Structures are given as structure tokens and as C-alpha cells.
């Protein structure tokens, strides 16, 4: 099973549960850190709930929720990721080499999610501290009710970006096709350029921070105000 520190798992043989039990059962101080998952066959919930500093490479396209609830692990997906990749991630890294379906990084608390291709609708919905870097574009309702963290979009953003947003920061290089309720363009200050440069570097992007625009909350919908009833 193990060759030069690299352990292989075949999903067609072990099944999703077999793979997850193996990866979840590893001690935090395990020496068996490098894992390769073959034949993911678009199955759901691959490599979820990991809680150790592992490095997991998934070769192929995955179904829903891959890398969900991740803590500390680096999970690299060599293919497309289905709905809710890295949902509720706590820390660590999930890197999608292809495109991703809707709700990527949903409710993520921490860690970094990189999508080399496009993400679909609702990317970063209700994000709570995760950083997300998308090499392509994101679909409509991205960063809906986003509370904390950074969403970096190197392409365009779909309709209603940042609807009902709290304190997350949104950086878009291309066009934002409409901002959601209470989401406004904000000044790009030195500290934002610095943060953005670090995020782009971590995601191995070549874009220049000064080419992005920043969006965030106007903070008018935090508490119910009858004068804003139409905006809720």
C-alpha cells in the first residue's frame, strides 16, 4: 500500500466510507501523511471531516461536499468538484484544479479554498472566515450573507454579489454583474492590497492586486429598520 511515504486508496475497492474511515482514523502525529485517492467516480463526501495535517491528492472528478469540515489537511482535487466543496472547512487547504459547482466553500470557518477554474452560483455563501480564491468567475448570489473571510474572484461575479453581506471582503478583478442588498464597492486601501497580494500568492495567481475592486457591507441591514424594509 505504501511506497516511499505515499499511500494509495482506490475508491472503487474501498468505497467512500472505507476511504473516510482510513483518513479520519489517522493520528495527528502520523508519519503516513501523503495519500492518493484513485477512481473517485464523482462520489459524494470524499475526504470529509479530516482532522490531521495530511496531504491528500484526489485524482479525478468528485461529487458533492468533498473536503467538507476539513481541519488542517491539504486536499488537492485533480478534476471538477461538485456541490459544496470544502463546505464548513475549519482550517487547512482545499485546491480544485478544475471547475466547481455551486455553494463552494459554503459556511467555511477558516482555511483556504482555491478553485483554478470557474465556481458556480452561491460561492462562499454564509462564509464565516474562510479565504476563497477563484481563478475564473463565480455565479449569482456569491458571498450571500457572508460574515467573515475573503472571496477573491479573478474573473467576473454573477448577479447579486454579496447580498445581505456582513463583514467579509470581496475582491473582483472582472465585472460584477450587480451587487446584492447592502453590498457596495469600497475603497481599496493599503492594508487590503497587502492582504490581497498574500492571498493571490498563496493561490499561485499572477494577477496584480491593484487591478481588483473591493466590495463589502454598507452595514445598513444589520438591525431591522423600518425605513429599509424594502431592502430585506
Amino acid at each position, binding site marked *: 500500500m505504501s511506497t516511499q511515504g505515499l499511500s494509495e486508496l482506490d475508491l472503487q475497492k474501498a468505497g467512500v466510507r472505507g476511504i473516510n474511515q482510513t483518513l479520519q482514523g489517522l493520528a495527528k502525529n502520523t508519519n503516513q501523511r501523503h495519500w492518493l485517492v484513485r477512481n*473517485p*467516480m*464523482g*462520489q*459524494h463526501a470524499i475526504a470529509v471531516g479530516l482532522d490531521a495535517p495530511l496531504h491528500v491528492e484526489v485524482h*479525478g*472528478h*468528485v*461529487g*458533492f461536499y468533498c473536503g467538507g469540515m476539513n481541519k488542517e489537511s491539504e486536499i488537492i482535487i485533480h*478534476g*471538477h468538484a*461538485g*456541490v459544496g466543496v470544502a463546505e464548513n472547512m475549519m482550517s487547512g487547504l482545499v485546491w480544485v484544479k*478544475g*471547475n466547481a*459547482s*455551486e455553494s463552494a466553500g459554503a459556511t467555511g470557518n477558516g482555511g483556504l479554498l482555491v478553485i483554478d*477554474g*470557474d465556481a*458556480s*452560483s452561491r460561492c462562499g455563501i454564509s462564509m464565516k472566515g474562510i479565504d476563497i480564491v477563484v481563478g475564473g468567475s463565480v*455565479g*449569482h448570489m456569491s458571498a450571500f450573507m457572508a460574515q467573515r473571510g475573503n472571496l477573491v474572484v479573478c474573473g467576473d461575479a454573477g448577479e447579486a454579489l454579496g447580498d445581505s453581506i456582513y463583514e467579509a471582503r470581496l475582491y473582483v478583478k472582472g465585472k460584477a454583474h450587480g451587487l446584492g442588498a447592502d453590498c457596495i464597492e469600497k475603497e481599496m486601501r493599503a492594508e487590503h492590497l497587502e492582504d490581497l497580494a498574500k492571498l493571490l500568492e498563496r493561490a499561485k495567481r499572477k494577477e496584480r492586486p491593484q487591478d481588483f475592486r473591493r466590495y463589502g457591507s454598507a452595514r445598513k441591514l444589520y438591525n431591522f429598520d423600518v425605513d429599509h424594509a424594502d431592502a430585506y
Partner: protein
Amino acid sequence: MCGIVGLYLKNPKLKPKLGKMFKPMIIEMTNRGPDSAGVAVYRNPVKKNETKFSLAHNDPAFDWKKIDTGLEKALKCDCKVAKIGNHCILVTTAKEKPVVEWLAKHYPDVRVVGSGHTIEIFKETGLPANVYDKFNLDEAQGTHIIGHTRMATESAVTTAGSHPFATGADLCLVHNGSLSNHNRLRENLRREGMEFQTENDTEVAAAYMTWKLRSGASLRETLEDSLRDLDGFYTFLVGTHDGFAVVRDPIACKHAVIAETDDYVAMATEYRAIAHLPGADDAKIWEPEPTKIYTWGGNA
């Protein structure tokens, strides 16, 4: 829930394998829709002066020969029938309208599930694997095929409430989602002369599209109008004589994924249905955008 799947072959060399390639796709969607399954396969085009009907009867022992001889006598036409499960493929030189009228008058229990030059529709309650075997779809050859696995929500589990629904000559619809304005729309369409066999929401969408197409709209115009007039959430897959079209509602919360290689275009509710196809690992894969009409085969 529900699962929808479509496969369009770009490489004609794969045509003999269409049914075999499609089988694991639809079976993979069983847990999204174990109540009933249906398939529309485009194969064996008939001559220009002929029409092909897909007919169904609840009694698997129904004698289709009676339809053959009865129609030939009444409409002075040539007919051929081939029984497949509790369905029958009828090829006739008669025009569509008199055939449908004759069937309604003499054999009201016979359901017309599809018609055209190439389309054949088979659908039945039960697990997709059983339905697939029943209609011997493993052996299906052709250019494209679409299918549906149903988890019934808006109406009863019946064969008539199964997808695909015919929407005109060589056209059919499968649907993942549910419509919220189907009762009102059904009443409006009844006033326009459309007839309904079930209380099913997708049948209303199909009738709406049939009505639009009959009034002269193109497939693209029909789908654009559907986006305006059909309220609810849906991913539609529409089979046409030479390909298929995919469209999603503006919110697009019903899943959909498309994969394309040099050999084929595949569409499914979830990628795992596509994962069984040869070369899927290297396919270009993306989620279709809301309200954007995707077509293959150039028919729209």
C-alpha cells in the same frame, strides 16, 4: 429529487454502443428516483411519408395486432407494430392526427407516449435497472438518448406520470424540480385545447412547450418563454430529433452538470452518472448557467 441524464454522441462510431453506455448512467441515478424511470431514444428513422408512434398499455398482454389491422382498415394505410414490454412501436403511413383520434375512439386505454420520425419513448414504474431491462434498452443504437429517474412529489407514482413527456414531433421533456403554477397553467392550456392525462406538473410544462411549438415558435423561443411563464425550480432536458437542449431556472438550485469530450456530450443531475463513460476523467466539465439555453445538434 429526481435524476436526469442525457447522452449525445458526437462520434458516429459509438452509435452501436448507445444503450450500453447509457445504462450505468441512469442506474447511478436510482437513489435520486426509485419510483419510476423513462427513456427517450432516437433511432431507426422512418421514411418521410411515415410516422412512428410510441404507444403504451397497462396490460402487458394487450394484443397490438388489433391496432395494426384496425388502423389499416379504418385509415387505408400501412402499419407495422413491434411490441416491446408493455409498449409498442407503431410505424404507419397515416397522418398523426387521424391515428390519435382513432386510438382515442376505439382504444382509449392505449396511451400515445411519443411520436415523430426517430423518437421512441419507454417509461414505467419501478427501479431504473428493471425498466431498462424490460424495454431491452441495452441493445439500443442511435445518436442520442435521454432518461429520467423519478422520485414522485407533485403527483402519483404511475406510468403516465413518468417522464419523458412528449412535446411534439420527435420532442420530449424530462424535468428535475417542481413547478408551482402548474394548476393555473393547466387550466389556461385546457382553454387552448390542450389535453392532459395526469395531475403531473411536468406534463403541464410539456403541454406548454407543445402549444408554443405548434403556434410556430422555435425551440429556443419556446424555452425562452418557458423561463418567463413557468414558475418553480427546474432543470429541463429537452430531446430533439438531432440532439438535446438544457435549461435551468434563474435560481438554478436543481443540480446539473455537463461533460464534453471529442466523442460525446453528457448531461446529468450529478457527475457520478457521467463518471461511468469512457474518457470522463479527461472531459471538460462545468455546471450550466441559469437561464442560459444550451443546445447540441443545432436544432434550436
